[in-house]
């Protein structure tokens, strides 16, 4: 599998997949998609990169250990829920902020979106942790 072609393509493929995953994540609220599926795509991207370039390379690229992303994701999702404490409503209430961009369109910021991004990070972090650990274990043997 570790052919030259694969190794050459892999970084581009990874980048493409990550971009695509973000796209899937962001359209999730209105079209099929969402944090989970996006996270899976991103994790696959990282796994592919790991296979082609080696796990240590990926780890360097990620800066943080992937499991840290998972923790960050849970934290983010929880914070999205906790925001409703400031407006006297129950936990996990969807809060929306529509910012008029002036040209008729508006930018929608919301806690459900924050929450979904949290999901994305958790899936990304946990799955790539597993994949990298398994790949690395192979190297170690």
């Amino acid at each position: 599998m570790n052919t030259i072609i694969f190794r050459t393509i892999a970084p581009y493929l990874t980048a493409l997949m990550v971009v695509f995953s973000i796209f899937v994540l962001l359209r999730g609220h209105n079209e099929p998609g969402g944090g989970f599926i996006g996270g899976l795509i991103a994790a696959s991207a990282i796994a592919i990169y790991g296979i082609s370039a080696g796990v240590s390379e990926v780890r360097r690229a990620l800066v943080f250990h992937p499991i840290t992303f998972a923790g960050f994701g849970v934290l983010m999702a929880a914070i999205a829920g906790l925001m409703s404490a400031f407006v006297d409503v129950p936990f996990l209430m969807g809060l929306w902020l529509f910012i008029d961009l002036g040209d008729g369109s508006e930018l929608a910021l919301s806690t459900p979106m924050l929450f979904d991004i949290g999901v994305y990070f958790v899936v990304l972090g946990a799955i790539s942790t597993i994949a990298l650990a398994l790949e690395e274990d192979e190297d170690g043997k």
Partner: protein
Amino acid sequence: MASSAATPKDLPPAMLDVATSIADWVVVWPIVLPMVGAAILLMLRNRTEWQAPFSFAILVATLLANFSLIQTVFTKGTLTMTMGNWLPPFGISFTADSLGALFALVSTVVMIVVLFFVQSEVEDRETKYGYHPLMLILLTGVSGAFLTGDLFNLYVWFEVMLIASFGLMVIGGRKIQLDAAIKYGFINFLATTFFLIGIAYIYGLVGTLNMADIMVKAPLVENGAIASVAALFFLAFAMKAAVFPVNSWLPASYHAPDPAVSALFAGLLTKVGIYGLLRVHLMLIPQSHAQLQIAFMVVAVLTLVLSPLGALAQTNARRALGFLVMGGIGAMLAGLAFGTPYGIAGASLYAVHSMLTMTALYLAVGLVERMGGTSDIRHLGGLYKASSPLSILFLILVFAAAGLPPFLGFWPKLTLLQAGISLTTQKDPLAVYHWWVIGALLLNSLLTSIAGSRLWAHIFWRNGREGKQSEIPNANIKPLDRRGFVWGLLPTMALVGIIVVVGLWPSLYIQAGFESAKSVTIFSPNYITSVFGENSQ
């Protein structure tokens, strides 16, 4: 909340129109705090020295939240918060009644004690690979299971708890742990799967997942399939609670991980199964109690009698304790089988007792292992001389487990016996069979005290090991080092202190048990009104 578009007129009422005060949040703090704590600890996993203090801080905050929750519930009744401000049953409700709040509180207490104990044996690399986050997640799952008011959400918390327990089971990576985890893992996976299947069916029958809503709708279901669904729930929770004959995973696995982890499992995991049984069969599908009563009785009697026999047959002290845990499950099942307020009170009191006592027993045996170098009772002995505090702790716990007065275990047993005796005189075709359950409860006490006193005689009283050397002092005993004393023995003592004090002044404890019994029975509409508001009936 800002809303840009005008809403159409024919929308149903969707949201609560009263503001939620921050005081109502107390029902979610017991899960949010440990969950967030675990996430943060995971991000800080390389700072091993921060893990324990931070976990401790989180747990103290959780404990305070639990205290405030139970106080609210006891004074003002069942407390509900429906997530996302949606009207129930559309959002997920968290509904804390006395039973759930009580169990959540005791779980947190157990967790704090074990957190201290962990400091006496955890290794740095284990801390680095998530020992503390796993513990916090376990607490999240357990508390979530106790507090949620939604059946599918209960399943989710079961899984949270399960995966955290998997992690704790294997952390350390010894052979015996892996073997135990295989058995534990597959069987428990099946249990939660059965639970999920049951949820699917119940959704198909009543079209809702909110517990209060199910309470309203399930008695109206005319489809006979609901009996099978109830039986499926029974099987799922019975597996979780380690009820005979589907209990084999418990003695196969509880002696494998670190003593602290065993203690945590013994205290928390099986009780969630019992909680599920109480919830489903007394509250959600109340008609199933009558249908399954004979089954409850049979498995209660078998579990009560066979479990202490298992303890008697072991040479591994920690494995023996696993059987004692199951014996307690039998007693709780007896309460479920009775199904009267006294019976339920007995079951929930027993659950609280079992959480505290079994945890403490595992911790004590953990210390025995550390001093004696093994958990094989044939190679132990002489600890009576070596550590009198430990021997006293152990004896108290053994008698508490056997339900002898004046220790904690007596009161739930007494309540259960009273429940059973009052049933025997009723004009009910089952009346006579209640004597079997009563007899099993008594026999369980006797067998447990035999098994316990034998353990005590072998581990502590005897000078040396099994056989001819039994009079020669055991040379393998090492005194506890400072770390073991401060972080191991003292927390155990504190927990036993709680057990003794509550055993001697049990009035508050018993009151809590009866309160929770009141909240579980269908006779109290408290639960439904708490979720749907006063004029929902």
